[in-house]
């Protein structure tokens, strides 16, 4: 309780911490009431979870259940992510194809720049947005049109300029073979909007960044950002899609219509 109060004083609206919240709402009283109701409700224990399997160690109070890590127990039951780098790469490629992403494997960075050039020409891109990152910068020469950097230090973020771009070029944290997902973060992949607002999203990544499963991806992001995770982490699984009209699949609902992955090495 005291820890959260300390935390609250760091928030932008700290002037209201002790007074009533927005609309005269007594937040502290509501918090107290809800937590009291929860404690009262939990005085009666629930039966152990259905299925039993891994819950064998769960007693009525359930404390020992917490010692079982579902994700570790569940690993063999989830979809396969491959047990070698080659196997993982093959699964990733198959998944990206099924998801209707465009996937290229190139031997080196200059080939990646060539690949980007060809894609940009084919689609007649007029303006490509990018962010500062060694991988992105090393292929930027391959962009045959004007460019827009989203993260110039000291400059305000220009939503309108980004909205006018045809494509966003980003790095990624890692690629997940199991689901064909690309993990981006707000810290290392050009913020929140670059990978979602332009009509196409181009990801440039190294083959070493491929991990077998979602659990591995989460482990890797935690070791990369020791201490504090970025304010946004997003698993991108194929181009934006919807089935809202008669359950018929349409690509490019609000996010990118095209997801192009260029994997180097």
């Amino acid at each position, binding site marked *: 309780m005291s820890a959260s109060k300390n935390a609250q004083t760091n928030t932008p609206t700290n002037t209201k911490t002790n007074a009533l919240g927005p*609309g005269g709402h007594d937040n502290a009283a509501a918090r107290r009431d809800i937590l009291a109701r929860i404690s009262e409700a939990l005085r009666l224990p629930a039966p152990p979870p259905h299925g039993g399997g891994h819950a064998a160690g769960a007693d009525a109070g359930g404390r020992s259940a917490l010692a079982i890590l579902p994700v570790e127990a569940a690993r063999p039951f989830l979809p396969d992510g491959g047990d070698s780098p080659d196997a993982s790469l093959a699964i990733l490629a198959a998944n990206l194809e099924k998801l209707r992403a465009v996937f290229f494997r190139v031997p080196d960075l200059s080939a990646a720049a060539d690949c980007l050039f060809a894609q940009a020409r084919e689609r007649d891109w007029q303006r490509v947005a990018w962010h500062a990152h060694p991988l992105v910068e090393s292929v930027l020469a391959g962009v045959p049109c004007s460019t827009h950097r989203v993260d110039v230090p000291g400059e305000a*973020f220009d939503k309108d300029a980004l909205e006018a771009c045809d494509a966003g070029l980003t790095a990624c944290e890692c690629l997940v073979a199991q689901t064909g997902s690309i993990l981006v973060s707000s810290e290392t992949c050009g913020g929140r909007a670059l990978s979602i607002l332009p009509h196409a999203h181009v990801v440039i990544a190294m083959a070493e960044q491929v991990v077998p499963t979602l659990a591995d991806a989460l482990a890797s992001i935690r070791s990369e950002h020791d201490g504090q995770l970025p304010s946004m982490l997003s698993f991108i699984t194929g181009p934006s899609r919807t089935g809202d009209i008669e359950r018929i699949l349409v690509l490019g609902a609000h996010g990118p219509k095209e997801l192009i992955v260029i994997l180097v090495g």
Partner: protein
Amino acid sequence: MIAPTPGHPALASQAATDPRLAKKQFLRDAAESVRDTGHRAFVRKALGGYYTNRDAQKSRYGDWEQARDAASLAKWSAVNHLDEMLPRFVANFEAQGGVVHWARNADEARTIILALLRDAEARAVIKSKCMTSEEIHLNQALEADGYGVVESDLGEFIQQLRGEPPYHFVFPCMHVRRDEISDLFEQHLGTAPTDSPEELTMIARRHMRRLYVEADVGVTGANFLVAETGQISITENEGNARLTAALPRIHIAISGIEKVVERLDDLAVLLPMLATAGAGQQMTCYNTLYAGPKRAGECDGPEEMHLVLLDNARTAILADPEQRDSLHCIRCGACLNVCPIFKNVGGFTYGTTYQGPIGSVITPHLRGLADWNHLSGASSLCGACTDACPVRIDIHTHLLHNRRNAARTSPGRLEKLGHRFFGLVARRPWLFALGGWLFRRTLPLAKALRPPPLSAWLATRDLPPAPQESFRAAWKRRR
């Protein structure tokens, strides 16, 4: 900016706000929907692709059934330790600059959100799909206060234009034909008619793009709250939630208190299972974790992030250990997609925010058992919902629990009388035999005359012909 179509018939029955009328409305709408064979065929066809995709994805699992055990355990642990998990989540969320608002009920949640908008001097609000906001009727409150609210999810946008609530809490407009959508867009957006789902989707895309850039406030839901890291997780396919949480100056998320999981790693199990059970996908297109507003060193993102934590009778479900597992629900909608009742009566007939089997379990807790117990009766108890649930909620048994609880608290007088009469007859063999004899003789006449209450049964079903002799007589003869 957008005027919803007023007075749609589906909304009219949905707006039967007097809870005492809920059962009458259900029976009337169910009878009407069941007769609409075109609608039933359309919904079945729309779900056909889902079954194929779901089964294809399930086959990629090492063991789907055991994965369900793990998912169930993850939710069970969090819900049964909510007293620890929720404060832990809140402390971690606040430490990253997020602001938490606690709401005991829908009224408080609306007050908080309206005040946040007022303090921010907001004008335009963009929303991504959020069932909790439907539960608290947020849009109506915002519009009454003069805010322009736009639903950005394609299905929700279509429903907003139609002036209808969602038909299905995952597939909001699955009952609407493409020509109706084309007419709707023509009427509201002035676009040319088309019968291509792709072209219709692009119309909405073009319409929405500027709205994301111009909105002051983005409102989203939350699928999971991760206690250990203080992140909220949002699952979507279209990218509208990503845009909603990226471009406006303020991000407000609304979540039920039961959405907590303990570890980030739990999502490695829950995210793919939510996608497979909910939409037959390996993984939904965007699964995004947010922890607070834009950080120093990040180039974009909202300046403020607020989270409204909603109780609204969830603690009442928590206080019932027998049905506590209904709080494990991850709102995938799998139980609706397989339910024979849902497929026949349709989503609007329920008259609830959460339709289908899980809605029939939780609505009596949220809105009162006496007025909503009829939903528990609308079940064939086939158990398809329980088999489909990725977190193993014992849904159809809970429907029986609700029926039992309702019978305990307010037993029907007629039902009680009927049972007493049956007991009276069954204890006296001669009276039982006489009753049987009378019934066998009079059944053909009753079928011809159809007196009430037999008429209700005979209106849509037949009875088999009466046997020539009683079971007891036949038994005696055979021996």
